[in-house]
């Protein structure tokens, strides 16, 4: 997540609003991925996500005047992206209404995590396997919506609690509760799969080696999770 609302960024926004529309291209470049991934993580459909990302960016362009600069620009953009994803999800649900699709489980009630005492870490190198990436995408995409939205913003887009709360219009306590629930649901679904389906060659160090944010090659791990945990 880029630090937004910098002086430079404010200047770019002011120029676009003042009529230099071309500057918008430069303004959004750091956020192309943010907007696409937010929508894709929810819809798990490339075409829809790309179209949605374009619509979200165009909407941001048309409404840039209404951006007051109180929130980060990135948070404002991600709110637009999330609304676009919700709109498309609603449309897809309406289309599926007459089908036999079960409604998404609301996920309330007690949960029991998957207990696998012989659990071993899955090395990041396993992500080279398309099948694993798709399994992770699917697990996120099938979370109940209210948990999924929080998970996408917090753990994939790496927004902080306050930004996530602002983007979703909920309070920070609810962000924490829903994030916990989302993570535990993913643990339930994914832990058995990872344990049984992902080959582990036993080479190299495990992914989480005494809590150090490095993978087996000693390279800093991508994504912001470790940064948050271990700083």
């Amino acid at each position: 997540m880029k630090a937004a609302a910098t002086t430079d960024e404010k200047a770019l926004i002011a120029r676009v609003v003042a009529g230099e529309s071309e500057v918008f291209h430069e303004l959004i470049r750091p956020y192309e991925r943010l907007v696409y991934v937010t929508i894709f993580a929810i819809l798990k459909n490339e075409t829809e996500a790309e179209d949605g990302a374009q619509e979200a960016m165009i909407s941001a362009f048309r409404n840039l005047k209404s951006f007051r600069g109180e929130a980060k620009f990135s948070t404002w953009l991600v709110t637009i992206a999330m609304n676009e994803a919700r709109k498309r999800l609603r449309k897809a649900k309406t289309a599926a209404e007459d089908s036999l699709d079960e409604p998404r489980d609301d996920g309330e009630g007690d949960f029991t995590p998957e207990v696998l005492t012989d659990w071993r870490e899955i090395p990041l190198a396993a992500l080279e396997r398309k099948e694993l990436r798709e399994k992770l995408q699917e697990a996120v995409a099938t979370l109940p919506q209210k948990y999924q939205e929080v998970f996408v913003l917090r753990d994939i887009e790496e927004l902080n609690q306050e930004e996530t709360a602002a983007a979703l219009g909920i309070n920070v306590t609810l962000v924490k509760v829903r994030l916990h629930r989302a993570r535990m649901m993913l643990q339930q679904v994914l832990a058995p799969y990872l344990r049984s389906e992902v080959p582990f060659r036993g080479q190299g160090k495990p992914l989480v080696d005494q809590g150090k944010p490095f993978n087996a090659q000693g390279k800093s791990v991508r994504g912001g999770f470790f940064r948050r945990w271990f700083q």
Partner: protein
Amino acid sequence: MKLECKNVWEHISGYLDKQLDAELLEAVEKHLESCEVCSAILDSTRNILVLTADDRVYELPVGYSVRLHERIAAVIESRQG
């Protein structure tokens, strides 16, 4: 404070985000030291979150950026035209 497994599960997320207060943190850590089950749940959850946060899980379609900027350019042009 002595915690049962079930109580520990409720705090896994808070633990990973370093949001537990000192007393609770101590109780959770004490439990984890002696409970293989809860340690495994914690490790698997942490691992799953590291995997899902990796950029490789969500890749941009080839040509996405080019098409995005073309579309924006078209919108800008139609506005000016």
